[in-house]
């Protein structure tokens, strides 16, 4: 299991060092600094073996988190733990920075003592941790409170405590998708997928039993055509009708769930039922590859005029309902390293050549569906004797659209709380769809 955990700043100075196992000595701290942080070349692997000691590291801004071990540990678990550690720290004190870590080092040690015992990860749900690891020093707890804490930390529903009360029962569902594309210069889709998340923010009293439904092809096909619309949630029309229009159901390649979801039930009946943690949680992640609505199409045209000039023309076309608006559109057109000057003309938005990034960045605030816009640029090149040809990195794009490119729709989210007297109808529900660009690239 994990033998020790170190946190370093960008210079390689130790900010936190906690050793869990006898086989990890102080020299391990230095070994990582010398061999990884101060290494000359780029990091070639997130796992490094130095003198029979293995180091796992992740980096958050300029902070290094390293877990150390001498055993054959579960590597996936170690990384998952390091990410979780980052989440917990963020939940406690915000951004992970050198200053924040130094300011909270006592808290971090306390957390590390709690969530990692002899190198075995223990309950690391922020909701539960916050009930008994606080920054306000001692809090006199009654006996009931204490046993409530321990039963929650170790319990089956470790992510939620009993006795939560809200005057207004409310829940928010965000369907957040990132659409990824790799397109050939000729407009052929080389690969495309949507990776989506359903984020739920709930403010519900008691221990509510929830059931979530979406237009999953397998469920819809099972139910037949009859009952498809009856259960649609009241607010699901807030933006559910996406750019592509009337798609009834979508094929989900794979999905994963927050630990509150009963997986065996999903496996058997494909129904998603759970008791949610209070506040925000990522209910599920999913991935689709079929019938994706690609919100934008990029058509590049690069022409080399002699050895010292490039002509670039890029057309973007929006491909969704004209009534919807895409926002924060940014097209990034890479330029060769030996660029000496750029002239840009664009019909819409602003375009600038950024020498430091070796790219022309074209920004458009808003763009409605079924429109197109164009940019043309002349790039002057310095003559070089470099034999190597310019690699022509792909043109990448960023945007945000108010629909789910996968076509996913929330059909319902039902809430039951048998012990308290509020019903599903009393809960105010909100659904929002946001589609963002993931890695959205067109080769040129």
């Amino acid at each position: 299991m994990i033998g020790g955990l170190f946190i370093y700043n960008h210079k390689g100075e130790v900010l936190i060092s906690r050793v869990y196992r006898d086989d990890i000595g102080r020299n391990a701290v230095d070994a990582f600094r010398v061999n990884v942080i101060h290494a000359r070349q780029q990091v070639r692997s997130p796992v490094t073996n130095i003198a029979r000691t293995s180091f796992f590291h992740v980096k958050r801004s300029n902070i290094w988190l390293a877990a150390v071990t001498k055993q054959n540990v579960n590597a996936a678990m170690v990384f998952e733990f390091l990410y979780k550690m980052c989440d917990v720290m963020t939940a406690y004190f915000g951004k992970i920075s050198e200053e924040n870590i130094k300011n909270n080092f006592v808290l971090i040690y306390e957390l590390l003592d709690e969530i990692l015992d002899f190198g075995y990860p223990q309950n690391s749900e922020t909701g539960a941790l916050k009930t008994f690891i606080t920054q306000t020093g001692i809090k006199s707890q009654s006996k009931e409170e204490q046993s409530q804490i321990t039963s929650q930390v170790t319990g089956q529903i470790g992510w939620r405590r009993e006795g939560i009360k809200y005057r207004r029962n409310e829940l928010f569902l965000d369907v957040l998708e990132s659409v990824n594309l790799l397109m050939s210069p000729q407009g052929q889709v080389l690969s495309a997928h949507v990776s989506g998340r359903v984020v739920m923010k709930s403010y519900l009293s008691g221990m509510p039993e929830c059931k979530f439904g979406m237009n999953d092809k397998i469920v819809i096909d099972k139910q037949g055509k009859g009952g498809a619309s009856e259960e649609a949630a009241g607010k699901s029309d807030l933006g559910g009708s996406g750019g592509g229009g009337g798609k009834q159901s979508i094929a989900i390649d794979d999905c994963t769930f927050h630990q509150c979801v009963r997986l065996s039930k999903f496996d058997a009946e494909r129904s998603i039922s759970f008791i949610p943690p209070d506040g925000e949680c990522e209910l599920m992640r999913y991935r689709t590859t079929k019938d994706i609505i690609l919100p934008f199409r990029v058509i590049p045209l690069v022409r080399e005029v002699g050895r010292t000039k490039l002509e670039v023309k890029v057309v973007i076309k929006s491909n969704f309902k004209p009534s919807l608006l895409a926002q924060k559109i940014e097209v990034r057109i890479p330029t060769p390293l030996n660029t000496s000057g750029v002239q840009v003309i664009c019909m819409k938005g602003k375009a600038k050549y950024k020498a430091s990034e070796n790219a022309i960045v074209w920004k458009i605030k808003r763009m409605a569906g079924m429109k197109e816009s164009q940019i043309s640029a002349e790039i002057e090149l310095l003559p070089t004797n470099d034999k190597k040809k310019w690699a022509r990195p792909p043109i990448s794009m960023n945007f945000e659209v108010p629909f789910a490119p996968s076509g996913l729709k929330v059909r319902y989210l039902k809430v039951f709380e048998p012990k308290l007297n509020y019903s599903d109808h009393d809960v105010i529900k909100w659904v929002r769809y946001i589609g963002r660009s993931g890695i959205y690239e067109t080769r040129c």
Partner: protein
Amino acid sequence: MTDSKYFTTTKKGEIFELKAELNSDKKEKKKEAVKKVIASMTVGKDVSALFPDVVNCMQTDNLELKKLVYLYLMNYAKSQPDMAIMAVNTFVKDCEDPNPLIRALAVRTMGCIRVDKITEYLCEPLRKCLKDEDPYVRKTAAVCVAKLHDINAQLVEDQGFLDTLKDLISDSNPMVVANAVAALSEIAESHPNSNLLDLNPQSINKLLTALNECTEWGQIFILDCLANYTPRDDRESQSICERVTPRLSHANSAVVLSAVKVLMKFMEMLPKDLDYYGTLLKKLAPPLVTLLSAEPELQYVALRNINLIVQKRPEILKHEMKVFFVKYNDPIYVKLEKLDIMIRLASQANIAQVLAELKEYATEVDVDFVRKAVRAIGRCAIKVEQSAERCVSTLLDLIQTKVNYVVQEAIVVIKDIFRKYPNKYESVIATLCENLDSLDEPEARAAMIWIVGEYAERIDNADELLESFLEGFHDESTQVQLQLLTAIVKLFLKKPTETQELVQQVLSLATQDSDNPDLRDRGYIYWRLLSTDPVAAKEVVLAEKPLISEETDLIEPTLLEELICHIGTLASVYHKPPSAFVEGSRGVMHKRLPARTGSGEGTECPDVGNAAGGSAPEAAPSIIPSQGDLLGDLLNLDLAPPTTPAVLLPLMGAGFGAAPAVMPASLNAPVGGGLGDLFDLGGGVGMPMGAYIPPKTVWLPAMKAKGLEISGTFARRAGVIQMELVLTNKAMSVMTDFAIQFNRNSFGLAPAGPLQVLTPLGPNQTIEVSLPLSTVGPVMKMDPLNNLQVAVKNNIDVFYFSCQYPISMLFVEDGKMERQVFLATWKDIPNDNESQFQIQDCHLNSEAASNKLQGSNIFTIAKRTVEGQDMLYMSIKLSNGIWVLAELKVQAGNPNYTISLKCRAPEVSQCVFQCYEAVLKN
């Protein structure tokens, strides 16, 4: 309030100041001081001198302060064991505290203090805590047993903690179960034979129940433990798999990978024809793909594991090629791993896509990645034959870029392509030679030298090229030196006249001026070979090279099996068994996949049997494996063995001349006349029928003969046996100087004239040649009887193959026996020599059969009808005078004929029967 100020104190006398503060009466000041101490400890300062003062702060009701003091204790107790005792009382007291959080904290910390004296005091509190009413305390105590075991294993056993720990597996709280499982697994690892984790169907059931309820981490502990279990039979295996599959939808990648491990292992036991087996295979792909949308570090772990899974069960991900395409922003370690998997998944179906991708990658920035991409293109060429040509042209394009490392990498892979497809792409050698000067890496230089040596006969200035390398012989790496030595020896064997000096030079460099034993030994071996027996030298040095395998970097199967059992762990990331990187007793135990149970074996065995039975085609053309013997035989036919291979041609020519040309040498003589005669003999049969000629088959595939493909058949036309050959040049260069020679054979077949290929055979050209054969050559009995070993020579090399001719070629035209003679002979030949055969599915009546047979010089002498059965009596005469008598029974309406053959040389019967069958069915 911020804590960062604690990091900044660097004054002298700091320890002294801290000491004062620690002993202050004010609680706040004390706490501040302890924080400062911990901060100093973190950055590596030695604050152990403050031990007594810090321990004094331990007695406090401030939980935060207590935790800080405990942290200090854990760090320094080992260096101050005597003083650590001072803390024991507090620990023991805390273990009785009404607050479960404090009880747990005490037992957790005590376990981390590795001082023997303290350990003794730990036993009683630990025993109580293991049975505590609060699950939080129990789950902490469970881990504490593992801690204690790490310090003093004997003590843990003596105190009976292991049994208590085992009981906790049945605890009502899932987290307690999970921690107990983790602790037991760890302890069991250092006692490989202890049977601690006594896993049986009942305990497995408990674990599976807890699996649904515990935290994500607990699920990992349980799954990793389950993976060590071996189910009793396939049914148990299936039921566990069914209960584990829901975990594949967990958000935590480690849970998913551990579930994959359990499934991959238990799947081994499921019979392959089971529906569930297929369902399970299908269920595995999506979660594995989903792992690739995790954070890059996890992607890396997932990819390393997928690499193993793809090797073990390629069917799982064979349709998922696209998800492994490299993204521009992927970290380099993800890119390299994806590339590896892409090559493994490359197949004919997706090769176009893969190649297009690889071509893109070859223009990227990262040198390692580009090299790997170039190498990948080469590997695709070797793996998917249909793509080879495209791969080669892509590589040539890349060579044109002149980017140094791209060129070198391309040359290394092209060498392998040459090995895989000899005589196909040698036309690119010229392009390669242009880049000779830019090669500075040993591997690329060695590859280039190999190419020059191997194809020395086609590179006009091969000697110059090799000589240029020879100048700096001693500065080259061993790899290059060895290759250079071999290449020059090859060159000498191919062009002995011009390169005498060069070979002398390299041999003396290797043997006299080198300190490397490998090089010296190889040099001596070549030297002796060349000086004593040049023929043997040629056989050794220019021997046919074994095929290179399609897949490279495959993990050896037993290691792969072991690594599959370690999916998700470091072993699977390093692709090494745990013993390679873990010290001590842990991980020494080798894990193995379970064997398939009874029902599974039943389904597999027959397949193997079938395969073995089917893989022995009888008459297929075969390449003679032991060339050496044949070469000897062929040469012995004529004179003493030649001193250098260069004189092989004239010798063989002499051989041809020596074969008496009895038969007319008219190659394409009109067959009309002969046929006419045959018809006369047949007594005016209406249908014109010639002798049976088997269809042409490939005797020598281009792969084995540097691009020369030979197919052919035998025919007897107008009393002349002819070997009809089709020569196709599938190489890039022109072939000339063809000659042919037979080995001694059963019926003395020999070419009656030279092989008439008068014009050079250009690339992709085909020529048809008829070679008249005589039957007066030297005789040697072959097995099978009608086997013929042939050598064909051209300007490139000599090639050997063997083929089988239908014995009907040898049936002569005057094979019709007188009736009386037939009867007498039939009686005269002992019954032992009679053999009977069945010809099945022949729908000719006796008359048609008789006519058909006559076309092949099988003559019907008499016909008798007995009870609706036609008895045909026939005679055959072979070219060497052997008579074969036959009785053919044909029953109207029955497609199965019975044939009895009598002959003084009964060995031929089988061959004759084959001819009957061939003639009647065609």
